[in-house]
């Protein structure tokens, strides 16, 4: 049993036209027993940067708290919000610091950078960044998600179409993974608003 399969998770982020979407499943389990069906995996760092953490839930929560702390310090010093590229570098450095005793988390970072250009990135548990121009995936359902996103993704999707694509990719992938599912949580972020939607999925 891999340590990543202890809690189970599914995360995906996709780029659209001047917008991005980040989505996760809602199950929290302890190996094969489900203990929560409304677990929040995606958190807002600031208005334009969202962070999703897959993997061991306890490490995800600790890492999230440390990152919020560092971001607040940054806001106090610089009097502005962190750019998504900078935030990704920060997460990478914090994870690599624990190279020989890592956090068992895979973060997915999504944000709107300068000139409202969407930015997405994922990392392995020791901070090796993967910057993609189309989509990134993480979690126990990642293999199915790779397949689903690879075939469903199109360039320059508008927010509504992007939402539909991300939701269908997520729901179809978690259906093939025992450890994730129980609905979905999708955030679609454009320069003017953040639309958060909870999806109805198979409850098994």
């Amino acid at each position: 049993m891999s340590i990543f399969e202890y809690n189970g998770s599914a995360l995906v982020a996709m780029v659209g036209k001047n917008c991005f979407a980040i989505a996760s499943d809602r199950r929290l389990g302890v190996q094969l027993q489900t203990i929560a069906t409304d677990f929040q995996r995606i958190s807002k760092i600031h208005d334009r940067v969202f962070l999703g953490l897959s993997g061991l839930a306890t490490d995800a929560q600790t890492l999230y708290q440390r990152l919020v702390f560092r971001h607040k310090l940054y806001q106090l010093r610089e009097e502005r919000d962190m750019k998504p590229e900078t935030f990704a570098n920060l997460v990478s450095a914090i994870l690599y610091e624990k190279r020989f005793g890592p956090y068992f988390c895979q973060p997915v970072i999504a944000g709107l950078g300068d000139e409202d250009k969407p930015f997405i990135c994922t990392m392995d548990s020791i901070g090796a960044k993967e910057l993609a121009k189309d989509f990134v995936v993480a979690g126990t359902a990642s293999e199915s998600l790779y397949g689903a996103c690879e075939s469903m993704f199109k360039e320059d999707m508008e927010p509504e179409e992007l939402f539909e694509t991300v939701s269908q990719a997520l729901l179809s992938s978690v259906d093939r993974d025992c450890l994730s599912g129980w609905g979905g949580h999708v955030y679609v972020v454009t320069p003017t608003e953040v639309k958060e939607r909870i999806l109805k999925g198979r409850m098994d």
Partner: protein
Amino acid sequence: MSKAVVELPPKGGFNFDLCRRNEMLLKKGASPPSFRKTGTTIVGLIYQEGVILGADTRATAGSIVCDKNCEKIHYMAPNIYCCGAGTAADTEAVTDMVSSQLQLHRYHTSRESRVATALTLLKSHLFNYQGYVQAALVLGGVDVTGPHLHMIYPHGSTDALPFATMGSGSLAAMAVFESKYCEGLNKEEGINLVCEAICAGIFNDLGSGSNVDICVITKGHKEYLRNYRVPNTRAHFSSKEFTFPKKTEVLLTKIVPLREKIEVTEDGDAMEE
């Protein structure tokens, strides 16, 4: 009086806080995660005017390709580049760290960096960690003493060679080099040879794939040719796009408008003296 201990962010180096907990988890049967490796074919060769480095662009996590177009040729100095194979986080961290050290050294000495400096910094860091930092590098550059090409192994040993290959596809690439390399190649011949060697790795080694990146370094000039050759484009696109006639069922929608940008125009009267 109680002493308030404020936890400041740590100042660099590795942190071993979680090692004990992770060992406990390992004993309980939880297998450790697989890190992202770069599988890889990386090569370098010295030609008439300088150094040519080449790399493929596939990154793997276990047997899944997690990045189809990653960058394996890292910047060290304006005249020095380094290709990295092994654990992706280690190659990125080590090359970034030495690149910053070289920059500081340049400020200190007001001179162009030398390849030997980068080599010593890299090998001493890797030797310090006794091979646990799994980075296998091909370092190439042109400085005042001429063109240099080195191979650096994860345990800290180095080789200086006219042509070098590293990574899981190194045998395929070395076969090409051993049969076709000669001294005094010109730029075009050099680039073609490097391309052929990387393609040998891409097509024959499962850990390497996607495209070819090339970097040409000469005295006072460098050319970074990202995706110089793209031999693996997706050929079959379905003409019918994915459409979803049955929409996803949404239980709850929450819309949060972000702050509007307010433009202030100078409309009022000027201030009276």
